[in-house]
């Protein structure tokens, strides 16, 4: 039901602009497997810290500096069954930095992707072990703060299907069991035996395509990708309420809604409700909880499109959890009123129109929207405006009626206990 087909081209996409940098993207699409989880983290560490030519971090990074590379990154986007590995290189525009050797930098980038630090049929053992230890410590360290600790605990409660919680924190055995041979197999599967979608974003002309083709074999063909991004969580019969004492100062309340009979067409409504509740100081959630009643210092609304989850996250005093929860429930109910809903949609639309203007001054936002559009990762700002403008109010209210309070998790800090007279 959720599957879709998108068509892309192998020939590089060239997006021209006048910025002082040029960005190259190599995006490798693949089907996601659970066993990739830790190897994806390892690949990022190993590929960006050494290569076949530059065997250790010192040599690699020094070369990187000599080539005046501004940044190089590898990010993984996992959307249910789909995985995208995105390599990105940012370098100065040769029209701005005179005598800049773009080809040398690009060739370095190609070596990063295709000529890694391997010995025979495995990754360099020493480098592998160093990065494994680093990642293990980093993962354990990242759990030692109130935000990630409470978030992880919340995911474990709200996600009964294992869509969101099936992450590295719940699979620490993958770190211990990883080895340099399997990593090489995964690398071959995802990179060597795969073909990237290539994009260039910058002040370039057609000659850039010749440069890319000098290093990468590209055929003039179309690529069809089966995408299956969504795996919705459905509401449980009875809301789960959990209160847990924490060793931190602040108290965090997570209020999660799921949608009855959620389907792909509901994504726009989910996005709308998130934006009504949670954009800026004029948002309903901020106005209600902070400005009008002084119940919170900070609050936000977010949604996870993959699972269809809507979450309101608030930082509160220990004695305010019930009243904050009531106010959130009332807000959702209030949106079932047609007039209020119409007014709120108008407010969000106005705000989005300004975002379109702000985007003109922001290189990365323009870029994000282009990728979003090409891979159908979500709605661009322009698409949101178009969709919101044509929403049927009755259908929107039908969606709100299908929002079900599913999980309330209160991670209770001890600041209020220590400062009872406040």
């Amino acid at each position, binding site marked *: 039901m959720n599957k879709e087909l998108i068509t892309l081209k192998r020939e590089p996409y060239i997006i021209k602009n006048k910025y*002082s*940098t040029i960005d190259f993207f190599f995006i490798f699409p693949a089907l996601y497997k659970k066993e990739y989880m830790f190897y994806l983290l390892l690949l990022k560490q190993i590929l960006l810290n050494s290569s076949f030519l530059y065997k250790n971090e010192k040599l690699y990074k020094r070369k990187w500096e000599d080539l*005046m590379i501004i940044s190089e990154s590898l990010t993984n986007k996992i959307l249910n069954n789909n995985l995208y590995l995105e390599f990105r290189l940012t370098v100065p525009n040769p029209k701005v930095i005179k005598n800049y050797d773009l080809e040398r930098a690009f060739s370095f980038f190609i070596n990063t992707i295709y000529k890694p630090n391997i010995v025979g049929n495995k990754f360099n053992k020493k480098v592998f072990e160093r990065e494994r230890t680093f990642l293990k410590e980093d993962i354990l360290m990242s759990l030692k703060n109130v935000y990630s600790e409470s978030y992880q605990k919340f995911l474990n409660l709200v996600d009964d299907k294992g869509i969101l919680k099936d992450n590295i924190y719940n699979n620490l055995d993958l770190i211990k069991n990883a080895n340099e041979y399997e990593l090489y197999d995964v690398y071959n599967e995802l990179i060597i035996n795969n073909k990237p979608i290539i994009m260039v974003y910058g002040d370039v002309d057609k000659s850039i395509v010749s440069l890319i083709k000098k290093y990468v074999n590209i055929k003039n063909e179309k690529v069809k990708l089966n995408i299956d991004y969504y795996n919705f969580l459905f509401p449980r019969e009875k809301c789960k309420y959990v209160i847990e004492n924490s060793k931190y*100062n602040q108290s965090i309340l997570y209020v999660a809604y799921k949608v009855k009979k959620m389907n792909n067409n509901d994504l726009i409504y989910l996005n709308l409700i998130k934006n009504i509740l949670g954009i800026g100081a004029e948002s309903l959630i901020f106005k209600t909880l902070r*400005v009008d009643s002084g119940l*919170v210092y900070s609050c936000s609304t977010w949604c996870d499109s993959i699972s269809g989850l809507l979450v309101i996250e608030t930082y509160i005093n220990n004695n305010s959890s019930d009243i904050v929860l009531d106010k959130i429930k009332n807000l959702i109910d209030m949106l079932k009123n047609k007039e209020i809903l119409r007014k709120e949609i108008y407010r969000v639309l106005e705000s989005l129109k*300004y975002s379109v203007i702000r985007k003109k*001054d922001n290189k990365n936002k323009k870029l994000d929207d282009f990728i979003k559009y090409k891979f159908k990762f979500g709605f661009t700002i322009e698409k949101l405006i178009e969709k919101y403008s044509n929403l049927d109010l009755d259908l929107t209210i039908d969606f709100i009626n299908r929002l079900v309070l599913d999980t309330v998790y209160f991670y209770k800090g001890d600041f209020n206990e220590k400062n009872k007279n406040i």
Partner: protein
Amino acid sequence: MKKIKIYKLNSGPKVVLYQDTSRHCALASLFVMFGGKNKEVIVNNKCYSICDGMAHFIEHLLIENSKYGNALVMFNKENTNMNGYTSRDVTEYFIDSINNFKSDLEKLINIVNNVNFSINDIEETKKAIIKEKMMSKDSNFRDLEKIDYECLFKNIKYPNILGEVADIKTINYDMVKFCYDIFYQIQNQMLIVSGNFKIREIEKIIKDVYSNFDKKIIEYNIPKIVENNSVLLKEKCIFKNIHLDYVRLNYKINIKNLSNEERLKLDFYLEYFLSFLFDSASKVYNYLVSSKICLYDIDYSCSKIDDFFVLKIGTYTNNHDKFITIINDAMRKKNVNRKDFERRKRKSIINIIMREDSLFNTVNPFIENIIKFNCDRIDKVEDIQKQSFADYKRSILNLDFSNMSVTKMLQIKNNGDFNG
């Protein structure tokens, strides 16, 4: 088209206009020279103490109780972004506007200068700030910074910007009014406007709006803080719920005898020097990693605190002594390298060129030059090209790295015992 104009309004604020007509928005930052560092003030030969958190408190009070109501809400209704920020040195009120910039600017100046807060407003503001304090209590590095100050300085105190709960609770109307009247005098303000606007129109608005304020002039002095070159304590630690210990070396460098321009140049040179010694391509970092003394990058920074530069070099490690010895040896050897210097210069030039891609990135370093170094100029590629290796080497060799303290954030073991 880009144009810069800097001037002082008669008996008014300093004004900096940076016009860039290629942009689609305009920004304004109104700075008040009142921050977390201000702990005492002398009026009529009498010294008054200012409680911790006062500058930040006033920032909240003015934004949430302006003549337009809550300023954040009011501006957001107009789709203008607004916020306030209090640092050690200043309080900043900021807007980012698209359609209504002229009226937004007028409102911004009014929010700061045309005030009418009540006792009740003060009590309400306390509640929000105590909640903010509760959130900040979980920040480990804020506490580490506090002991950095306690080790480095005898007389310069940690700028406890939020204040403690007890400080916030003692704040009353008279205290707020007293501080507001002194520090929010218009000659103690600076207005920076950037982006797409017409210079003449904006000049007129600024002049007209400021001419409406009839604030009385109060003579005041900030007590001079005399601080030795030496550090007060060699070492101090705190205990936190962390996975690995964090160790930091803090170097105190007196820059009293340097001119503003020399300070600005040294700031660049110290960045080059620390990057050469400790970035991920450095010998030191790679030795530390290969010998398993540390796993993570070395954090390094240079900040200016009054007449001192403070260099901080730290990382997560359980091998404290080796880390300290290696870092300290590297600092004291003062190794510099011509090829590396040229590499850093090129990087600085690229950074300056790249700033042009974003209005924020262009304006923020400009503001930093003005506020931090009192240099009314934007960094230019030519400034970097003029830097010479001989001058760099001489500058580094002249520095005294003997005044150093160590601060540590140590992990609490699960059984409640301390490990370290």
